[in-house]
C-alpha cells in the first residue's frame, strides 16, 4: 500500500518534471505556466487511469522521455503525420492536434484567433490557458486546417482512383479531373469563407511561408499524381506551376464571389483550366513546328555539304 503510494507520488513528480522539461522548449514563460496548468487540468479529469499510467511511466522513464525530447521545433510539423508514442499516454503533438480540431468549429464566430482555440480547449474539458500553447495570430490553427483539408482531398482522390481501377467509374478526362479536384478542395473553405482572407494573410507571414508553401506544393503534387502525371522532365515543374496558378487565382476569386453557390468561381475555374489545356496544346504545336524547322535546316546543311564535297566517310 505504502509502496504503491510512494510509487504514485514519485511518478507524479516525474510527470510534472517531464512537463517542465518539455516546456523549456517553448520560449514564452506564459506557455510554461499554461502547459503546467493544462497538465494539471487534464490530469484532474483522468481519475482511474492516473494510478496505472504514472506507474508505467515510472517503470520506463527512458522510453517515456526520449520521444518528446526529439530535436523538433516548438510547434508540431505540418508536413508529416502526428507522433504516436504509447497508447495510454498522449503526445504533446496529439494533444495540440485535438485542441486545434475542436477549435475549428468556433472559427466562423471568433476568426482564426486565440479565442477560438480557447473555446476549443474548453469543449475538451481543458483549461482556457491552453491557448497559450499557440501563437496569438492563429498560425497553427490555420496550418492545421490546411493540412486537414489536404488530407481529406488525398483521401477523396485515392477513393476515386480505386473506383476507376475496379472499373466502377469512368476515368475522367484531364481537364475535368483537375477542375473537380480543385473545386472539391476549395469547397472545404466554404464554412470558413468569411474569415478566410484573414487566414491567407497570416499564411503569407515570413514565419509561416515555409510551412504554407510546403502544404501547397504537396497538395498540387498530389492532384497531379492522381491525375496520372508521369513526367520526369521539365514538364514536371511546368504542370505544377500552372496548376498552382490556377488554384491560387481561383481561391482569390472565391473570396470576392457573392454569386449563389459560388457559380462565378466555378466558371472562372473552368475557363482557367481550359486555357491551360490550350496552352499546352499550343506549346506542343510550337515544339513540333520548331523540330520541323530544324529538320529542314539540317537537310539544307547536308545538301550543301554534299554539293561542296565535304561529306566524306572518315
Amino acid at each position, binding site marked *: 500500500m505504502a509502496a504503491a503510494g510512494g510509487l504514485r507520488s514519485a511518478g507524479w513528480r516525474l510527470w510534472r518534471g517531464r512537463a517542465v522539461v518539455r516546456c523549456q522548449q517553448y520560449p514564452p514563460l506564459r506557455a510554461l505556466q499554461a502547459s503546467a496548468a493544462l497538465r494539471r487540468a487534464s490530469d484532474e479529469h483522468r481519475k482511474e487511469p492516473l494510478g496505472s499510467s504514472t506507474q508505467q511511466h515510472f517503470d520506463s522513464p527512458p522510453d517515456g522521455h526520449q520521444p518528446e525530447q526529439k530535436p523538433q521545433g516548438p510547434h508540431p510539423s505540418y*508536413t508529416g503525420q502526428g507522433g504516436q508514442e504509447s497508447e495510454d499516454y498522449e503526445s504533446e503533438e496529439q494533444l495540440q492536434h485535438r485542441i486545434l480540431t475542436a477549435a475549428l468549429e468556433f472559427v466562423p464566430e471568433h476568426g482564426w484567433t486565440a479565442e477560438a482555440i480557447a473555446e476549443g480547449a474548453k469543449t475538451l474539458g481543458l483549461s482556457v490557458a491552453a491557448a497559450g500553447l499557440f501563437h496569438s495570430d492563429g498560425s497553427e490553427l490555420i496550418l492545421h486546417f490546411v493540412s486537414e483539408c489536404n488530407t481529406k482531398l488525398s483521401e477523396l482522390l485515392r477513393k476515386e482512383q480505386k473506383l476507376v481501377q475496379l472499373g466502377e467509374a469512368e476515368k475522367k478526362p484531364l481537364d475535368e479531373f483537375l477542375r473537380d479536384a480543385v473545386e472539391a478542395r476549395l469547397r472545404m473553405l466554404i464554412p470558413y469563407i468569411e474569415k478566410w482572407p484573414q487566414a491567407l494573410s497570416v499564411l503569407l507571414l515570413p514565419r509561416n511561408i*515555409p510551412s504554407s508553401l*510546403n502544404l501547397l*506544393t*504537396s497538395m498540387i*503534387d498530389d492532384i497531379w*499524381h492522381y491525375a496520372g502525371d*508521369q513526367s*520526369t*522532365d*521539365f514538364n*514536371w*515543374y511546368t504542370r505544377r506551376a500552372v496548376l498552382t496558378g490556377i488554384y491560387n487565382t481561383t481561391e482569390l476569386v472565391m473570396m470576392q464571389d457573392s454569386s449563389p453557390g459560388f457559380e462565378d468561381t466555378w466558371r472562372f475555374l473552368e475557363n482557367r483550366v481550359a486555357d491551360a489545356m490550350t496552352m499546352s496544346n499550343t506549346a506542343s504545336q510550337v515544339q513540333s513546328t520548331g523540330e520541323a524547322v530544324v529538320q529542314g535546316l539540317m537537310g539544307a546543311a547536308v545538301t550543301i555539304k554534299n554539293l561542296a564535297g565535304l561529306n566524306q*566517310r*572518315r
Partner: protein
Amino acid sequence: WTLDNWSQNPVIDRILRVDHAGEFGANRIYAGQMAVLGRSSVGPLIQQMWNQEKDHLKKFNELMVAYRVRPTVLLPFWNVAGFVLGAGSALLGKKGAMACTVAVEESISEHYNNQIRTLIEEDPEKYKELLQVIKQFRDDEQEHHDIGLEHDAEAAPAYSVLKTAIQLGCKVAIFLSERI
C-alpha cells in the same frame, strides 16, 4: 539549404534524382558524340554504349514515377551541357571521345559505389531492389569505362587535363542535382 523538406523519403529522393540526372546527361553526351563521329569507325561502338544508357534512363524514369520523386530543375541545362561535352570531345577526335567516356564513366562508377555503400548502411533489406538495379548499372558503366580504355583513350590530346576537368564537372553536377 536543400529542398529535402518536401519529400517523403529524403534518402531515396536524392539518390533517384541524381541518378536520373546522370543517366539523362550520359544520354546527351553520347548523342553529342554520335552527332560528330556517327559515321566514323567508332560510330557503331558509341551507338551501342548509347543504347545501354537509354535503357538505364528508362529504368530510372520508371523508378522516379514509382517513388514520386521530383526531377532536378537543372535538366534543361544538363541537356545542353551534355550534348556540348559529347560533341566537343568528339571534335578532338575518336581518342578524345573515348577519353571523355573514360572520365565520365569512372566518375559515375565511383558515384554508384558510394550510393551502394549508403544504401547498405541504411537498410539493405528495404532497398534490395534498388541496390540490385544500381549494382547492375555500375557494372555496365564500368564496362563502358574499360571499352574507352581499350580504344586508346589515354592517347588522346591532353588526356590528364581533359580527364581532370571532366571529372570535376561531374562532381559539381552530382552535388547540384542531388539538392536542386
